[in-house]
C-alpha cells in the first residue's frame, strides 16, 4: 500500500507467485513485482497474466494439471528486473503453457524450443540440447557417417575412419574373445581407430571393411580363407595404415599397407 513504484513495466499486470527460489523468497518476488507496478494475487484467476514458480510443488503441479494458466520460471521475472524491461517469454522460461500460449509458441519455436526464425548461438543451442534429455532413440552410427558426408564434415580428424568397420586381430583364435591377447599394441590402435570414428567389431563377419593385423601374421591365412567365403571382401592391413593415416590426418590408401 505504501509501496514506492520504481517502474511501470508491469503496470496493471496480474501475477500469482507460487514459490520462491533459493535466492529470493516468494514475498521477495512479490515485493519486486509490486515495485514495478504489477498486481499480485494469491490464487490465479481469469485476469492473471501468469503463475510464477521458483520451485515445483504440489500447488504448481495442480495448476499444470488444470491447464488454464501459463506457469513461468522465476528466472524470467528476475531477468525482467535485471533488464528493467518486459522480457518476451522464451521456451526455456516456461514450466507449463496453456493451450493458447502453446499454439503461439508452436508458430515461433519447434517442440525443443529452437526458434524457426531467429538465429541460434552456442549458448542457446546448448540450452535447447540440455532440455532434450528425454530422447531415447539414438541415431545409428551409419547415419552419423551420412550426416558428416552431407555437410562435408567427414574430413575432420575425428572422423577419419568413419566409413570403416574394422576387426582387430587381437584374439589368438579368430572371433574367440576368450583368447584375447593382453597388453597388445593393437588394443591401443583399436582405441585410436574408435576415437577417430571407426566402428571396431569383435567378430570377423560379413560386412566389415578392414582387418587390422599387428606383428603376428600367423592368422592371416585363416583370414584369407574366411574372406573367400564372404561376398563383401575386406582388406587386411598392417597397423602402419592407422599410424600413417593419423599422422597425416587423412585416410591413407590401404593398398600400400595390405598384408
Amino acid at each position, binding site marked *: 500500500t505504501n509501496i514506492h513504484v520504481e517502474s511501470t513495466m508491469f503496470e496493471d499486470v496480474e501475477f500469482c507467485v507460487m514459490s520462491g527460489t533459493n535466492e529470493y523468497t516468494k514475498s521477495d518476488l512479490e515485493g519486486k513485482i509490486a515495485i514495478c507496478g504489477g498486481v499480485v494475487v494469491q490464487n490465479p484467476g481469469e485476469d492473471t497474466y501468469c503463475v510464477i514458480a521458483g520451485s515445483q510443488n504440489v500447488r504448481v503441479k495442480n495448476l499444470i494439471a488444470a491447464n488454464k494458466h501459463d506457469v513461468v520460471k522465476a528466472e524470467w521475472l528476475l531477468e525482467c528486473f535485471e533488464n528493467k524491461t518486459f522480457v518476451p517469454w522464451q521456451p526455456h522460461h516456461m514450466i507449463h503453457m496453456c493451450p493458447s500460449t502453446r499454439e503461439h509458441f508452436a508458430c515461433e519455436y*519447434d*517442440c*525443443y524450443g*529452437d526458434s*524457426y526464425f531467429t538465429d541460434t548461438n552456442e549458448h542457446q*543451442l546448448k540450452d*535447447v*540440447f540440455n532440455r*532434450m534429455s528425454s*530422447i531415447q*532413440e*539414438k*541415431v545409428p*552410427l551409419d*547415419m*552419423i557417417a551420412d*550426416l558428416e558426408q552431407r555437410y562435408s564434415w567427414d574430413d575432420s580428424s*575425428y572422423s577419419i575412419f568413419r566409413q570403416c568397420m574394422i576387426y582387430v586381430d587381437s584374439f589368438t583364435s579368430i572371433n574367440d574373445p576368450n583368447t584375447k591377447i*593382453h*597388453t597388445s599394441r593393437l*588394443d*591401443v590402435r583399436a*582405441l585410436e581407430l*574408435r*576415437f577417430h570414428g571407426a566402428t571396431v567389431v569383435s567378430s570377423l563377419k560379413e560386412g566389415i571393411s578392414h582387418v587390422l593385423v599387428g606383428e603376428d601374421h600367423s592368422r592371416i591365412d585363416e583370414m584369407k580363407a574366411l574372406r573367400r567365403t564372404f561376398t563383401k571382401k575386406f582388406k587386411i592391413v598392417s597397423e602402419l595404415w592407422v599410424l600413417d593415416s593419423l599422422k597425416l590426418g587423412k585416410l591413407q590408401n590401404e593398398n600400400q599397407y595390405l598384408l
Partner: protein
Amino acid sequence: MEKKVRKITMNSNLGITYFLQVSWKEDLGNGFAITLSNGHSAWIGEVSDNDVSKEASDMEMDKIAYVDELKKAMILTATPSNKYTFDLIKDEESSEQYIFSYEKKLKEVSFKIGSLKVRNVNNPAEVINELIEHCLNCATELQINNEHLQKENERLRCDWNDMHEKLNKYVSGKEELEQELYTRFTCVLNKKKEKIRNLKEKLSESQQRETQQKIQQKSQDSVPFDTVPISELKDEDYGGSTDEEVKSQKTTLQPDLILPLRRQLGKIPHLKERLCTNQKTLPILMTFSLTFN
C-alpha cells in the same frame, strides 16, 4: 674386473668336462687370466697385453679383429660350441706346466687362435671353491635382477591396463557424446525441415488457390471459349500493317505527324517538291520517316 665361467671339453680328452674361467679388465685386449679345472685339478695362466698384440701380429690380423675372435672363442657361449675347440697338453719341457690352446674350426682346416702356458695349482680345492662361489654369486645377482625386472614388468603391465581402461572410457565417452549430440542435432534439424516442408506445402497450396481463382475469374469474364478477346488480338497483330490501317493512321495521325515530317522534308528540297506536287506519295514517305525516327 670381469669374470666369465663356462664349460668346455678338451680335444685330447673329450669325455671330461672342464670349467674355464676367464677374467679380464675392461677388454680382453688388455690381457686376461684363465683358470681351468676338471673338478680334481686346477690350472692357472695369464696372457698379457703384449702377448695379445704379438699373437695378433703373428697371425697377421688386425688387433681389434683378433680380440673379437678371442671373445668369441673364450667368452661368448652363444656361438655354436663346435666352432671353437680347446686342448690342454702336457708341456714336454716342464712336468708342472701344460699348454692350453684354442683353435677355430673351419670347414676343412682349423687354425690356432692362441695358446698359453698354464701351471698346475697346488691347492685345487681353493680354486674350485672360488669358481663355485663366483657362480653362486652370479646366480644370486641374476635372481635379484630378475625379481626386480619382474616387479617392474608387473608395474608396467598394471599401468598399461589402467591406462587402457581409462582410454577406453574416454573413447566410449567421446563416442556417446558424439552420438548424443548428433541425435539432438538431427532432432532439431528435422523439426526445421518439417517446418520448411509445411511452409512449402502452404505456399504451393496458396499458389494453387491463386491460379484456381485466376482461372475462375477468367472463365467468368471471358466470352465463349472459341473466340479470343479483341484486346489480346490487337496486341499480337500490332507489328503488321495493312492498307486500311495506314489509311486510318493517315487520317487520325495527320495533325501530329505531318509537322515534324515537314520539318525533316524541308532539308531535302527535291522531296519537298515532290511532297507538294504529288500528294499521293504521302503514305510512302510517312513510313520512310517513321523508320528514320
